[in-house]
């Protein structure tokens, strides 16, 4: 459905040039939900804007539904208004001088060949019904709440029944509670319309919850892509591990390795664990053992095989508590049921679930 090949883009800056995209390749099958995830400045929005046709890439090609819309090798670049897309902006970009109906009708009104007024009306109302805003058709755009503006923006993006829906951080301007609700609504909306979707966000929980495929971007490249569970559970490198959820790092040394498992002795705590290993490691190699806070059980009493630490800080977060534990020179994060109460300075013992650990050669 969407094919992006070898996308590159540089911007001139005050001190030379900045390469925003260093070769982006990906595909979205028809009906797929593909997410570009990364921190600001990683190139995710630039990629989306190139797909939309709002930016012209320096190199590479883009085709939407089989139509080549950009191919720098052949000097092709169709402007945004000729692409079969719907786009929702972070700011929603609802035109303040139009009412809700006029906002949603706009893509149909500027369409060539022209559409008849009855058809425009029918399709606008259908789009508004889809987002649950049919009662607001006559409302002035400036008199809408953030969530309502967002729904209007979706109706406007979908009213043309585009082949490709582009979403540029559409939830990031909403407050936390509404964001969660809109996430479900949005998923339901996209499932019902079956539109192919390219989603850009910096919020890993949105990315993990909504996508078929997540692509983690960093410094102008896609560093890893795959199904959310796969990327979360088996990050290819430290950047991905760090970016998706919080990760604890412990230094260690391989004692023996083979059959996809390695026995590692941790530098702090002098404990041996057997963890899965995707790379060939030889005995004596220095490694980083990475595990997530939820893969650790924290005890306030000594337990067999558990590593002794001291409690540095307890952060009560309502449904759970985050513990920051000191192990030698390393700070570890774990999550604990809020009923467990410890004070800074107390002793604690942690048991790591070895099968959830990931090994990287120490860098």
């Amino acid at each position, binding site marked *: *459905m969407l*094919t992006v*090949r*070898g996308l590159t883009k540089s911007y001139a800056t005050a001190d030379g040039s900045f390469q925003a995209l260093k070769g982006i390749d990906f*595909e979205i099958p028809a009906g797929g939900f593909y997410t570009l995830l990364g921190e600001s400045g990683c190139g995710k929005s630039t990629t989306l804007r190139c797909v*939309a*046709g*709002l930016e*012209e890439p320096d190199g590479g*090609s883009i*085709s939407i*539904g*089989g*139509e*080549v*819309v950009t*191919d720098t*090798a052949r*000097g*092709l*670049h*169709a*402007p*945004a*208004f*000729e*692409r079969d*897309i*719907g*786009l929702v*902006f*972070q*700011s929603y*970009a609802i*035109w*303040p*001088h139009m009412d809700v109906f006029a906002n949603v009708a*706009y*893509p149909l*009104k*500027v*369409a060539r060949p022209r559409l008849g007024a009855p058809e425009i009306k029918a399709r606008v109302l259908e789009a508004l019904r889809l987002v649950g805003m049919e009662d607001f058709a006559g409302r002035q755009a400036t008199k809408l709440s953030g969530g309502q503006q967002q729904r209007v923006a979706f109706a*406007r993006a979908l009213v*043309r029944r585009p082949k490709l829906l*582009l979403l540029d951080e559409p939830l990031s301007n909403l407050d936390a509670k509404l964001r969660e609700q809109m996430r479900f609504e949005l998923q339901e909306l996209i499932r019902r319309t079956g539109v192919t979707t390219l989603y850009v966000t910096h919020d890993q929980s949105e990315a993990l919850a909504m996508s078929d495929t997540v692509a983690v971007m960093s410094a102008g490249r896609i560093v890893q892509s795959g199904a959310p569970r796969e990327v979360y559970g088996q990050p290819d490198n430290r950047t991905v591990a760090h970016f998706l959820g919080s990760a604890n790092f412990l230094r260690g040394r391989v004692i023996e390795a083979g059959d996809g498992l390695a026995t590692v002795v941790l530098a702090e705590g002098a404990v041996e664990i057997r963890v899965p290993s995707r790379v060939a490691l030889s005995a004596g190699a220095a490694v980083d053992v990475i595990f997530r806070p939820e893969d650790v059980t924290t005890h306030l009493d000594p337990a067999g095989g558990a590593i002794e630490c001291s409690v540095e800080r307890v952060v009560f977060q309502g449904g759970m508590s985050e513990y920051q534990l000191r192990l030698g020179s390393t700070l570890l994060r774990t999550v604990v049921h809020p009923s467990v109460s410890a004070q800074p300075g107390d002793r604690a013992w942690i048991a790591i679930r070895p099968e959830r650990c990931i090994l990287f050669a120490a860098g």
Partner: protein
Amino acid sequence: MAVQAEPATAVPVARRRRRGQLGWVGGIAVTFAALAALYLVMAPLLALLSTAFRGPSDLLPFEPGAHWTVDNLLEVYLGTNLLSTVLPSTAIFVLGSVVVTFFTAFTLAWLVERTDLPWRTTIFTVILFPLLVPGIVMAFAWTLLFAPNAGWVNVALRALLGLEGNGPIDIFSMAGLILCQGIASVPFVFLLLGAAMRTMNPSLEEASSASGARPITTFFRVTLPVLRPGVLAPLILAILVALEQFEMPLIIGFPARINVFSTRLYFDLNPEDELPAYGKAAAVALLFLVAAIALLLVYNHLIRRAERFVTVTGKGYRPTRYALGRWRVPALAFVGFYLLVAALLPAVVLVWTSFAGGSNDVGLDAYRTLLADNRFWPAVRNTFVVAGLSAGLITLIGALLAWQILRLRFPGRAALDVVSFLSIGIPAVITGFAVMILHLTIPIGIYGTVWILVLAYSYRLAVSTRLSRAALIQIHPELEEASIASGGRWLDTIGRVVLPLLAPSLMASFLLLFIVGFREFTIPMILQSQDNWVLSVIMWKLQSDRQTAQAAAVGTMILLFVAPVIFVLRRQLLSRQGDA
């Protein structure tokens, strides 16, 4: 390159090769705007520059027989009184009048915006009144009031004090010239200073009070420093405006034998019994053009800083007002005296003179003669046509320029930006002269018509680019991108999204430029022919032919037209600043 990932449906579409978002309509529109800016602002200046370096002086720069030379410069700077007399009088005139303007405008603005002065709204309106009246009308009215022999005020003072002869006030002096110009420039500086005071964040002053500072300390240590960028920029602008003034120097300065830059340039172009000395006049203009552009660069630097200040503080503040207490009566007296001299007495003397000035009978004679004068109605039509057309033309061009400078990336963008604000610094007398040379050199058949006035007035592009730019900065680019991504072409995006959102500032720009064009005197004086007289020029002609009553009748009709406009303008100004 493996592009066609879905070979079954792969149909390469991009029918034409690479096109930007503009399309050909947009391309033509922005190119037109850029070329128009170059033609309206840069072409006359280049004509002027080359004239300064071409001789002999009585030839046009590219007439056969003309050649490159520095004779004009040498002759004007070494052989005339330019440096010894004109430059010092110009400096005294400009600085003196700016001091008067600033002292008066700052006090008025502070009283109206920051104190509990009674009747503030009424006072605000009356202060604005002279803003719309052509300077030539004010100059004429003041000579009727303060002329040493028959001026009303002098006659009254002589009767009161039992004096004989002329005086005691002589308007035809440097002091008179400075005071008149100083007062004439007050409304416009008052507006700018008022806006700066209104947008000031009151918590800055409150923080000072809460730190234990007394009001007077707060005023000098917080209020003034915070206002500084908002005060310095109008100060430079006032200097630029004073530098280009021509009306007061012509009506008040000339009888007193005071020559400033603008009148000197005018008389070089219109010598009594010689041919116009283009080269020498251009050499004179050069000095003041350089000075004006230097001031403009300072101004531009300051305005950028002021903009940053305003962005930080935002809008919608309601500054606390100082209680005047026992200063209430002196404050009212100051305001009252100003309004009397700047608005009320001039209006009364004009109206009275129009009814009674010509003969001993009070009556409508002056109006009858005027309406029968076959120059009058064409002048009315010319005034409105030229002001309206040039205001419309540059509002449109200015908006397009601002849009492309902010939204597009193209080579020469920075240069176009400079051209778009340059006109703030170019004195009108120089523009009139430069446009004259340009169209004498490239005869396209509009010299002496109203069309050359439309082109010459239209050099004031900066007013419209500035306003549009400020409005465009407020419009999030995503609003335009949303239109493009919805399938809107350039015209759709501009026509359905950008223009509707810009409408209020386009209206303001049109109104402002219309008023400026309506008041214009310098440019139509320099470019005048019997086919393009406007009201202000006709009034000057009547006045210099000693047809005082008819001149006053023209002035009165201008006042009648201006009075309702004031109320429209006031609503615009107040609502724009969120203080209705």
